[in-house]
Each structure stands twice: as structure tokens, then as C-alpha cells.
């Protein structure tokens, strides 16, 4: 434990987690409410990125529809809330169940395909969910739906920003803990082996499809959890939260942070949000008015990262010893 702190990776990670752990106190001390809301979204998106990393990073499965789990988790909460079921004790299990079942179903169909076809079929299923969401006229259609936050009477009030943040942070820590175990477990090694050489793993007696399906389903469930949180964060759900561009953002985050690195999703999410917040003012410094068009810089930056920095931020922190 102490030894881990001496590596740059360990130190950076410990610092990040420390700052995140006390973020509500910091934002209160410096009276920066806005930062807490960004922090909350960073934590929620990190959970989603951790879940994508579980299949993309460790399994090599390029799912291009992961934002659909934002939508499924979010809409399950939203629809129940609109129908007058406000208890989180009902909303959350139902939403998790929905995300898990949907992930199992489309995983079973998608994992029959390989390579590009897999990328496309996951994208297609996400679009399907997207259009179902935008067709739900009773629940706001394209415009989305304002909801009230899930109620956990006597336990926690999600309307309190700090409490909600800490809940999200605790869930992120739990996700990271699980992912760390998962990655080096018997299951995780099979998944990583199949990423390296599927034919070999089959010849060793592993029914690769079943392991991938299990991984896809777990990732879907965790993705659903991030959707639940996202809906509660903004008290709002809309199809936009699961547009394919959001799925693209998630892939960007995972690669940016470092695929198959435990804390990669965390680094990636922070970098992504920081770039989003910092590029405009930086560009404005260079030339007044440029900040508005920060994506002109961000887009090519992505191209460069894709081409030359596929190890992501994690690889900048030194070699990984596993």
C-alpha cells in the first residue's frame, strides 16, 4: 500500500481520490458551487467509463453504444418518477434490472458478430433505444422529462448536493474496487486472454462467448447505475443523454485515460471535463472570441491522441507492473 504511493501513478491516483473525497468541503470553502456540480458529473461519468473499460479495456470489445445504459438507467427512474413511484428502493432496483436484462439480451445478439460488425450492431441497438426514448411522447419525447429525485426517506436526501456527491463518490470507489478485483480474477484473465487471442482461448476449453456475455452484462448493469445517478443529478432525463455522440465521448474517455488500466477511466474523465472547461478560456486568452470554437482544437487533439497516444494518460505515469 505504502509502496504504491511511491510510484508516480500511485501518488497521482491517491491525490485525485483525496481531492475527490473532500471536494464538497473545498467547493464550500471557496464558495464554488458550480465546481461541485462538475465534480458530480465527473464522478458519474467515471463510473460509466469504468463500466465501459470492463469490456473495452479488458475485453477488447469496442461497444459503440454504451451511452444507451445512461438512457436505460435514467429513463427507468424517470418513468417511474413520472408515474408517481418516487421511492428509490423501487426505482433503483428496477432500473438496474432493466439495464442488466437489456445488456444480456443485446449482448447475446451482438457478441455473435466480430470486429466492425460488433461496433455497428452495438451502435444500432443504442440508436434503437435512443429513438424509443424520443418516441415516448408521454414522457417528453425529444424534449425530455423533468423528474423529482429518488427518495430514500430517513437514509439520504439526494436533493442535498453534497450528500448526493458523496453517494456518487462512494459508488465510484466501489466500482473501482470491484473492477480491480475483476481484472485479475479468474474471470478477468479469461476475458483478457480472449482479447489477446480468441482462438487460443477456445482451444484451451473456454467458452469465450459466455464469458464475454457475462462481462457485457455486468458492464451494462454498472452503466445503468451511472444512468440512474445522471438522472438524479440533473433531475432530468432526455434522449440526448444517450445520443451516439455520448457513446463516442465515453470511448474517447476510456482511451484517453488508458484502456485496461484500473484508474484510466478516472484520469480520462477528469481530463475530458477539464479540457472542456479549460480550452475555451485558454483560447480566449490567445485571441478574444476563439474560445467559443474550442472544438476546432479539441477535434484534432483527439485525432492526435488516437494516432500517437493510445496508451493514454496511464502510460505517461510509467510502466504498469501487474
Amino acid at each position, binding site marked *: 500500500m505504502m509502496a504504491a504511493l511511491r510510484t508516480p501513478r500511485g501518488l497521482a491516483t491517491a491525490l485525485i481520490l483525496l481531492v475527490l473525497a473532500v471536494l464538497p468541503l473545498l467547493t464550500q470553502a471557496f464558495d464554488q458551487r458550480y465546481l461541485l456540480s462538475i465534480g458530480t458529473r465527473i464522478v458519474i461519468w467515471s463510473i460509466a467509463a469504468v463500466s465501459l473499460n470492463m469490456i473495452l479495456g479488458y475485453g477488447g470489445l469496442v461497444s459503440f453504444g454504451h451511452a444507451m445504459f445512461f438512457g436505460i438507467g435514467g429513463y427507468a427512474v424517470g418513468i417511474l418518477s413520472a408515474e408517481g413511484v418516487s421511492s428509490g428502493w423501487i426505482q433503483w432496483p428496477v432500473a438496474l434490472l432493466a439495464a442488466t436484462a437489456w445488456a444480456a439480451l443485446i449482448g447475446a445478439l451482438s457478441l455473435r458478430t466480430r470486429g466492425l460488425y460488433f461496433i455497428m450492431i452495438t451502435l444500432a441497438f443504442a440508436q434503437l433505444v435512443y429513438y424509443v426514448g424520443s418516441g415516448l411522447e408521454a414522457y417528453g419525447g425529444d424534449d425530455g422529462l423533468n423528474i423529482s429525485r429518488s427518495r430514500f426517506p430517513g437514509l439520504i436526501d439526494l436533493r442535498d448536493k453534497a450528500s448526493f456527491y458523496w453517494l456518487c463518490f462512494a459508488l465510484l470507489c466501489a466500482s473501482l474496487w470491484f473492477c480491480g478485483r475483476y481484472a485479475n480474477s479468474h474471470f478477468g*484473465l*479469461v476475458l483478457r486472454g480472449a482479447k*489477446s487471442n480468441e*482462438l487460443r482461448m*477456445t*482451444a*484451451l*476449453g473456454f467458452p469465450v462467448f459466455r464469458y464475454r456475455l457475462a462481462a457485457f452484462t455486468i458492464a451494462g448493469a454498472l452503466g445503468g447505475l451511472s444512468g440512474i445517478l445522471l438522472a438524479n443529478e440533473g433531475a432530468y432525463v432526455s434522449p440526448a443523454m444517450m445520443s451516439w455522440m455520448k457513446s463516442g465521448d465515453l470511448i474517447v474517455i476510456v482511451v484517453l485515460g488508458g484502456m485496461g488500466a484500473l484508474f484510466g477511466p478516472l484520469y480520462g474523465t477528469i481530463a475530458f471535463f477539464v479540457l472542456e472547461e479549460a480550452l475555451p478560456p485558454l483560447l480566449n486568452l490567445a485571441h478574444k472570441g476563439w474560445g467559443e470554437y474550442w472544438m476546432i482544437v479539441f477535434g484534432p487533439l483527439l485525432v492526435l491522441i488516437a494516432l500517437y497516444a493510445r496508451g493514454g494518460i496511464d502510460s505517461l505515469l510509467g510502466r504498469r507492473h501487474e
Partner: protein
Amino acid sequence: MTEPLLRTERLVKRYGGLLATDNVSIDVRPGEIHALIGPNGAGKTTLVHQLTGVVAPDSGAIHFAGRDVTRLATHARVRLGLGRSFQITSVLREFTALENVALAVQGHAGHSFRFLADARHDEALRGPARRLLEEVGLGERAGTLAASLSHGEQRQLEIAMALAGEPSLLLLDEPMAGMGVEESQRLIGFLRALKQKHAMLLIEHDMDAVFQLADRITVLVYGRAIASGTPDEIRANPDVRQAYLGEEAA
């Protein structure tokens, strides 16, 4: 006579107009090494692919360990005791030699739906894996990434992985390809010692190795088994001399 371990019945596989496997019926008995030889493109690898279930035959049947496995998935056949090495070296390049074999042991050790235990320190996997590496002569290289092993070492690693499944039948697709003379000789000795425990279907272009090791030989040409018998019978067979060995003599 003992019941054969593996038996194919008139297997046929077509690739478009090409008959890659043409009514092939062969068998392998417990405790024997059956060599499959034939010129390049004769359909040897295609036959192995069908035996392991990577490729489905168009017609015919495969019996293994007393069961009809023709429609069985690859991983299920492996579970029944069918191990293989690949003609084109197929190891997990990003894993160390020890991890490769440990995964192979894991593949044999029941399901792996275990999410929380640390498999990298599971002695139940690493112990046998280390022993297997010693056996094939890679004990020193346990911690090396498979990608950094020499070609010959990777071939040895493949065999260790195939053995981890404790297969009753080993399918070896050109295990000596690309090996030096010395390495080959070592491997020949090693395989001979193995044959009591593991029957083998051996595909090999190195005729020295084949005639040293094989109890029986089947000659495949253009997908057809043109001859089958003891090494002496094959050496004497005029068809074989003409179709195959003749080329080498010339």
C-alpha cells in the same frame, strides 16, 4: 484390438470448388502416435480444424472418446480431452509464459466465473503450470512475455499449454516447424516419452521425426487419404512414393 480414441467417418469439406477433405476416415488409438503427412495444401490443417470444431465438415462424422462430437463446440471437445497446438504459433503474446500455461490449467479446472479472487496468485494454477514449463524445458523463462520468447520457445510453450488440459489426444500441427535440429531432437524425445499418457495425431513435414515417432502413418493428397499403414508399409507403398515421397527423392 482397443477401441479407437478418435475416429472420423467419411469426412468431407469443400471450399467452393476445392475438395479440401475428401471422404477421410482415419482413427487414432490410445497410446499411439498417428502421423498425418502430405504435401502443402493437402488439407491436413483443415482436417485438424474439423476435429477441433473450428471448421464444420460438410458431411461425415467425428467420434471422440466414445461420443459423436461432430456438432459439438470447440471448447466442449477440449473438455472431453482434445488438446491441440497450432501450425501458426498461437500463444497469448501479452502474457508471460507462466501466465499462458496457468490459463491453460485454468481452462481445464472447471468454470472461471470467479470475479473476486486473485487468479495471478492462485497456486492451484501456478504450481502445475510451473511443472509443465519445467517439463518442456522452459522453466527458466517462466516470467518472460510470450511475445519475447524465441520461435522455438513459443512452440514449446504451445505444447505445454496443450498438455495442461491433460488431453487424452493431442493434435500437433507441425510442432517442429522452424525449429533447429537440436531443438527438434529434444522435442522428438519428449513426445516419445509422452505417448503412453497422450495419444497423438502428428502432422509434420520433417520425415525424420515422422519415421522416428509414428506407429502409423496416413498420407493425405488433395484431401484424400491415399494410404495408411506402418512406417515400413508407407515407405514401401508405390502410390506414396510416386505421389509424395517421390518428390522428395527427386
